């Protein structure tokens, strides 16, 4: 039986319901919350701040350090052991690379910008949700950036190209599946995160990326709105 209709009745290019908020962690220099479907991500930015150990210092510009972490109760199965496992370490690294191209830390030699992403609840697409939250948090921290970063996973389930796969689609067993986390810079459509699990032809992949760009622009509008809301003029004048 081929996959003709998405299990949760979404259209192929329809994202799950989203929610975004900026300034959610008072202690942080910048912070944001991003929710898509049942996946929620908090991101907090600290810095630029002093960097230890000293051997990490880059005398020509500040460095970016990302940490992705799932809360122990955020997995759909058993408890997730706290601490950075191999998966979390890899996601932290690709998150860093997804955000780095927009960030300009020339004014902050020898310092570090720390980005902490924490997920209280996940159901597929957690690294993309983390990147969306982190990019808003970096902007909220007042850093120099050429653009925001928007991310979504795209892919195929059987012969259907879909965006924002949920857990049941990732686990679809009656046909081939490909899950492609994608991050783009909305202004130029350049790609800063691209991974894939599964099997797909080149043609399908390029079509999937095209679909992903469109979705990222939708996400971008939500990110932009949340950032502006924090600073919108409140009061009677």
């Amino acid at each position, binding site marked *: 039986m081929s996959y003709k209709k998405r299990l949760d009745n979404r259209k192929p290019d329809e994202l799950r319901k989203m929610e975004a908020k900026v300034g959610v962690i008072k202690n942080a220099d910048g912070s944001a919350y991003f929710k898509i479907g049942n996946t929620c991500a908090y991101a907090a930015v600290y810095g630029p701040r002093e960097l230890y150990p000293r051997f990490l210092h880059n005398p020509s510009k500040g460095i970016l350090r990302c940490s992705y972490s799932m809360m122990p109760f955020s997995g759909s*199965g058993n408890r997730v052991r706290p601490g950075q496992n191999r998966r979390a370490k890899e996601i932290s690294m690709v998150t860093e690379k997804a955000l780095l191209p927009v960030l300009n830390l020339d004014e902050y030699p020898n310092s570090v910008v720390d980005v902490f992403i924490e997920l209280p609840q996940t159901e597929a697409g957690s690294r993309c949700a983390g990147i969306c939250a982190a990019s808003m948090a970096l902007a909220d921290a007042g850093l120099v950036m050429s653009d925001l970063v928007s991310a979504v996973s795209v892919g195929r389930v059987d012969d259907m190209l879909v965006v924002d796969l949920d857990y049941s689609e990732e686990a679809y067993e009656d046909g081939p599946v490909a899950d492609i986390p994608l991050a783009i810079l909305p202004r130029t459509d350049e790609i800063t995160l691209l991974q894939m699990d599964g099997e797909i032809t080149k043609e399908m992949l390029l079509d999937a990326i095209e679909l992903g760009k469109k979705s990222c622009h939708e996400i971008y509008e939500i990110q932009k709105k949340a950032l502006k809301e924090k600073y919108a003029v409140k009061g009677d004048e």
Partner: protein
Amino acid sequence: MASNELKSHFIKLLNEGKRLDGRDISELRQPIKVEYGISKTAEGSAKVTMGDTEVLAGVKMEISEPYPDTPDQGTIMVGAELIPLSSPEFESGPPSIKAVELARVVDRGIRESKAIDFRKLCIKKGEKIWILLIDIVTLNDDGNLIDASALAALAALKDAKFPEVKDGAIDYKKKTDKSIDLVKEPIAVTVFKVGNHFIVDPTREEEKAIGTRLTITTTKNNLICALQKSGDSSLTQEDISRMIDIAIEKAKILREAL
């Protein structure tokens, strides 16, 4: 590190009946808020807000083997993560002693108050029991993490529903409507001694100027079920007596938030 002026200024304010954030000396911060079900992947979860301090707690349930000495009892495990997202002063890496202490104080409060009848967590004597994995994660640390965490853990337990079990395996996608039978509600209140004053619910800034604290966990009928003294200075017996009275009084307010 605290500035040299902070402590003397703090005591000056306390002498005039005020706290660093302007509230009256014995007041708890507002809001005191408990939100249930903040994580759908947990079997039970809650978020506690006390002033600017925010703490999450989640309960995952797993089936495990009982300890040989208690073959007919399930058990709990409490973990706490002081994550670097929540404070500029927390670092990545294995749990700090502060996190370990916090988890253990919360664990003792629940365990020793007998809030949960561990026998009811037994599935098959000597073979299978439920283990309740309670995890506390700080979201924003503005002080008084122990009290907020204990309240969050309790709220998450109240929120929890057992998952369905089929042929001995848990189906985490399906929750039953069976809750954990919480027979008591242990509430932790930490009382701090600053100079000659006793205060509760300090901010992060105030905590920097405080030497000594006593966490007192009490149940609704004013029974003390866990204690933890910490800090560099000593307490007299009179101090402890006063601190217990304060803890019992403040526990009533926190209990109302549940």
